[in-house]
């Protein structure tokens, strides 16, 4: 009885601990961007309306959301897989320890190498007159473009996105891999588990919530990325951020309220993605505790 009262009392001021974060988020994230939410439901004259949101369901915008989600899923998935492989190689894969430091710092820089410089780097390497394309053609006789490769395509953009997705994965998953205690592997070995069994039944379940969380981060990261797509496939790819920018920026009079509705739509999709991730993670965590 007394315990319950104490726990109740403790819980009531536990909320205080979260106040700095919420104050920070309120003052510097949520309030300044309320304009999006408010603007999404207003006409240029200031009346409240649902038209902007209703307009989101026209075919061209639905297609834009669809392709945005697909690219984000593709780059997040590949980023997770490849990033995990590299991070695992460096932490528990038996590679020399001195590789880790430079890899981490390099990943830090590469994680933010995006936009025009990245698009240009890939054009200069894998474009039709790119360095790699020409070298492959002249030294190895492999003509990439004749084989159907095209940098300016869905997969070309995904490959370009991976340049900042993979390092992000590496940086975030490495501490988690560090947390895989050696004792667990040894214990599993003693009990006769093969490497596959160890991974399937011990390591992956432990890492699963982290992997899911990082996947969600990579998805949102790619979903919001616009500068690279714009610079690389500017007039061909109709992803949502580009559409958004066409409405609220640019040199032609557009409909900023549609832009706000688009941004609102992106926030909703991020919320849904986050919700899905939380649900999957809670299911995974149930039998770890």
């Amino acid at each position: 009885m007394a315990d319950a009262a104490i726990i109740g009392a403790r819980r009531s001021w536990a909320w205080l601990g979260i106040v700095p974060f919420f104050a920070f988020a309120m003052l510097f994230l949520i309030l300044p961007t309320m304009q999006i939410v408010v603007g999404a439901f207003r006409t240029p004259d200031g009346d409240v309306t649902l038209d902007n949101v209703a307009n989101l369901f026209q075919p061209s915008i639905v297609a834009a959301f669809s392709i945005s989600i697909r690219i984000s899923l593709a780059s997040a998935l590949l980023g997770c897989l490849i990033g995990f492989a590299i991070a695992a190689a460096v932490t528990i894969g038996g590679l020399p320890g001195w590789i880790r430091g430079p890899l981490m710092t390099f990943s830090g820089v590469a994680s933010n190498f995006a936009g025009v410089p990245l698009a240009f780097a890939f054009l200069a390497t894998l474009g039709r007159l790119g360095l790699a394309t020409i070298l492959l053609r002249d030294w190895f006789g492999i003509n990439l473009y004749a084989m159907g490769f095209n940098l300016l395509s869905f997969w070309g953009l995904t490959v370009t996105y991976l340049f900042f997705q993979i390092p992000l994965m590496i940086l975030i998953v490495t501490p988690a891999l560090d947390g895989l205690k050696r004792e667990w592997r040894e214990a599993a070995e003693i009990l006769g588990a093969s490497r596959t069994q160890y991974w399937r039944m011990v390591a992956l379940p432990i890492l699963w919530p982290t992997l899911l969380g990082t996947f969600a981060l990579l998805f949102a990261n790619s979903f919001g990325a616009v500068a690279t797509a714009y610079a690389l496939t500017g007039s061909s790819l109709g992803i949502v951020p580009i559409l958004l920018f066409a409405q609220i920026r640019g040199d032609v009079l557009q409909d900023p309220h549609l832009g706000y509705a688009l941004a609102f739509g992106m926030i909703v999709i991020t919320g849904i993605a986050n919700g899905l991730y939380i649900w999957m993670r809670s299911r995974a965590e149930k039998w770890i505790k």
Partner: protein
Amino acid sequence: MLHLKSTTFLAGLGLAIAALPASAQTMDELIAGAQAEGMLTTIALPHDWCGYGDVIAGFKAKYPFLTVNELNPDAGSADELEAVRANKDNTGPQAPDVLDVGFSFGPAAQAEGLTLPYKVSTWDTIPDEVKDPDGHWYGDYYGVLSFAINKDIVTESPTDWADLLKPEFANSVALAGDPRASNQAILGVYAAGLAAGGAAGADAGEKGLAYFAELNKAGNFVPVIGKAGTLAQGATPIVIWWDYNALSGRDTLNGNPPIEVVVPATGVVAGVYVQAISAYAPHPNAAKLWMEYLYSDEGQLGWLKGYCHPIRFNDMVARGVVPQELLDALPPAAAYEAAVFPTLDEQSAMNPVVTGGWDSVVGANVQ
């Protein structure tokens, strides 16, 4: 605290001076007012666009008591208006004083009350079609759309829009912007439509889209946004660009690679940009001084050096104040004879056609 108060006081003083009727201020009063303000904030002025780098340097040299804040050179016209709106209550250095926006944005800004009317001393020499009678906005320079060609990659230069469809220009042609958002790119589509025989307005917009659909199907269109870098590297050997950008791009590349700038034989579209002073400018006197500078012969020649045709070009040529070297550096005047200046109505009819139809008609869409 004291610093903040004195700034507010001076801003108030500046506003009080600015509240006087525009014509009542002499240059000396303007300079005195600007001296009190001490600062000018510009936005969206890349240094390589129309030689703005030198124009700003010239202004700073003439009025050394003014600091020039340059905000966001990457801003589009919509960004500039948004900056004015967001800074309505702000007198800090983030609030732009002067704007340089696309033609259709002038009236739009005026309608929203974002502009301060002002008539420069050379007002009468600005053509009537490109200025607001009350002085809210006024044309500043224009250029025509041209092809910038990388001569290392393209040996035989195209001379007209129809040429671009030829097979030797496979994977070569790019616009310098996104045709759903960039004035330059949309007018590029429009120009192609005019060359294909479209009537001014929405019809040319549609014919332009059909042209680009054909260009894309032929495999000649590259959806990358063309810049000096991609032009030189070879990803976009032909860029459809304002002639002033193409010429200044040719200069910065300095023969590496050699660039040829060709104004197409048909479908020559001229684009006008307009200047305006922000209604909420914290430094209205400095802003007016800037306008006087830009519309003086000195300022106009500064733009001409950047290959832009200043709005008072015809007047200055008639008075013989344009140096011959500058005239020679421009594309031949004959190319400009056929130039079409789209009116506001034609542009507003054509814009939604192009921006709305690009994805579905041209279908350069990636699957």
